[in-house]
Structure formats: structure tokens, C-alpha cells
């Protein structure tokens, strides 16, 4: 981080590679479309460029990035909601991207998993997206990124994965032609 602060491109690129998935995941978890998510991610990087001299503790970096990205998501959402009147209930539960993208998937199995994921409540979609990041963020970082109490992440994780399993089972039943169970 100190090297990156000094303008070392390789060090900066390492930082970007390590955390770009986190930032993109946070933006998409807030159901931002691609252009808005792109702006949120780039805003977060620019703020890091401006603040990097003052961030002394490299271990706090992921939390700082997560908090900055979340604040920026909320700011963008506030302005979007002013432009397009909507309330939370009327928002589609499926997180971006839409289920149609499932056809891009090569394997039917991936498509099934994606369709099952899209039926989950928005809260679950956001959390699972964070939990599936590589490298995996800590619960503290996830709590910061999603505005969740750290203590609720473990139990919610279990519930959401259980929900995913039952959605998979349900899809399996509804997409299997009658009689094919022999």
C-alpha cells in the first residue's frame, strides 16, 4: 500500500486486482446497473488515490473500501429514486443482471443455479454474492459493505443457502417433464 501511495504502478495494480471483485460485488449487491456500478467502483478508487497517504493500516483497507463503496451506492440510489419514483416493495427482487443472462451460461447446471439464486430475497442475493467473493471478505467487511450486524451474518448465511437449496429443488420439480421420474 505504501508503494502504491508512492505511485508504484505494479503495487497499485496488485491492490486493484485484489479488491476489484469486492467493489464490483458491493455495487451489484446494491442492485445498481452496469453504468452506475462502474461509476461507484471508479469513485471508490479515486477516493482511495486521494486518501492513500492517510491510510496507515493496510489491514483496514478492505473495510475502508467497503464502507466507501457502500456510501457511494446509497448516494447513487438516493438520486436514482428521486429520478424514478419507486418504493422498495415495487423493486424487482432479482438482483442485476436479469435472469435472461442465464442463456449465456454454457452449462445447464449453472443456469439452474442462477435461476434459483434469482428467486431469493434481495438480502440473500447480496449476502451470498459477498460470501462468494474471492478472496473472501471478513464478516466485519461484509457487515460494513451491506450495513448488516456482524452477528447476523452467520445465521443469515445458513438461511439463505438453505433457501437456495429449496429453490433448486423446486426448479427441479417444475422443470422436469411429467413421467420422467419413471
Amino acid at each position, binding site marked *: 500500500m505504501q508503494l*502504491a501511495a508512492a*505511485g508504484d*504502478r505494479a503495487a*497499485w*495494480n496488485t491492490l*486493484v486486482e485484489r479488491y*476489484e*471483485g469486492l467493489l*464490483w*460485488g458491493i455495487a*451489484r449487491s446494491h442492485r445498481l446497473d*452496469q*453504468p452506475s*456500478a*462502474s*461509476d461507484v*467502483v*471508479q*469513485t471508490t*478508487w*479515486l*477516493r*482511495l*488515490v*486521494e486518501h492513500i497517504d492517510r491510510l496507515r493500516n493496510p489491514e483496514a483497507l478492505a473495510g475502508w473500501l467497503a464502507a466507501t463503496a457502500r456510501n457511494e451506492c446509497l*448516494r*447513487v440510489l*438516493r*438520486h*436514482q429514486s*428521486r*429520478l424514478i419514483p419507486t418504493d422498495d416493495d415495487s423493486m424487482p427482487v432479482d438482483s*442485476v*443482471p436479469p435472469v435472461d*443472462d*442465464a442463456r*449465456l*451460461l*454454457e452449462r445447464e*447446471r*449453472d443456469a*439452474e*443455479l*442462477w435461476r434459483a*439464486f434469482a428467486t431469493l430475497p434481495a438480502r440473500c442475493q447480496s449476502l*451470498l*454474492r459477498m*460470501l*462468494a*467473493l*474471492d478472496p473472501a471478505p471478513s464478516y466485519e467487511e461484509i457487515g460494513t459493505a451491506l450495513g448488516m450486524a456482524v452477528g447476523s451474518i452467520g445465521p443469515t*448465511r*445458513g438461511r439463505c*443457502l438453505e433457501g*437456495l*437449496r429449496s429453490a*433448486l*429443488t423446486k426448479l*427441479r420439480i417444475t422443470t422436469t417433464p411429467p413421467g420422467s421420474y419413471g
Partner: protein
Amino acid sequence: MDEMQLMTSFDDDLLLDELRRVFGAIDPVPEPVRAAARAAIEWRTIDAELAALVSDSMIDEPLLAVRGTAELRMLTFEASELTIELEAEPAGDDTLTLVGQLVPPQPAQIAIRHGSDVIATQADERGRFVACGVGAGQVSLSLRLDDRSGARRLVETAWLSI
């Protein structure tokens, strides 16, 4: 036992592994987002050209202000072979919506600084950009352009009170 049955019997970690793979396939970090991130550090190091303010509706058309139609403030900045046309409109919450047009039209990464804060946005292929929630006060725009020869170019407007 087929793959679907397998997946419903996956334990939590395996299911998350599957999700990780699907996110990577269906919604990876777009390459332009990655490229812009890698270039973000250059905002510190490249010397910027200054784009000068050449017209300001608040100064040039004070009568409009008197008539109360000047909520929308129009500004024009010029640098070498680049004009930045900017409209600033109050959003009603002490912030401004900035709508801009680059002439000649071209894509650009844009950093809008207001006070000690910064907001990123981008101009599309037609040179248009928009930024919401810009705090009123001192504002400056930095633009990163790729010129035809592929060289990077950084242009900054002077700070302006809006």
C-alpha cells in the same frame, strides 16, 4: 444421480464455490472498469492541461437570472482541441446535477471534485456525461482522454464556485 440432485445435496461451502463460479461467468468485473481502476493512480502523476472557462451563463446572461430562468447554469470550458459544455442544475437538496457534453464527442473518464470529495463518471462515445449529487460550492472537473494516437491526456478545469 444427476448433477442437479448433487447440487441440492451440496454443503454450504460447496454451494458457495458453485456460486463463485457462476458469478465469475455471468457478471465478472467488466474490462473497462478494471482498466479505469488501474489507471486511477495516474490522476496523481500526469500533469494536467488547464481548460479555461470561456463562457458562464450567470455572467453572460444576467437578465435570465433576473427573470428566474437561470436555475440552469451553463458553462463552457476550452482546452486545446477540446470543448467541455456543462449544465449545472440544482437538485433541490443542496446538490447539483451536472450534465455535460464533450466537443468533439469522445469517451472519457471523468473525476468531479467538489470540496474535498470526488465523484467518478464517464463520458460515452457521443461525449455525453451526467453526475448527480455534486455538492454545491467549489467544483473542478478532471478528464482523462485517449487521443487518436493512443496517448493519454489529462485535462482539468479551473475551480469554480457553483
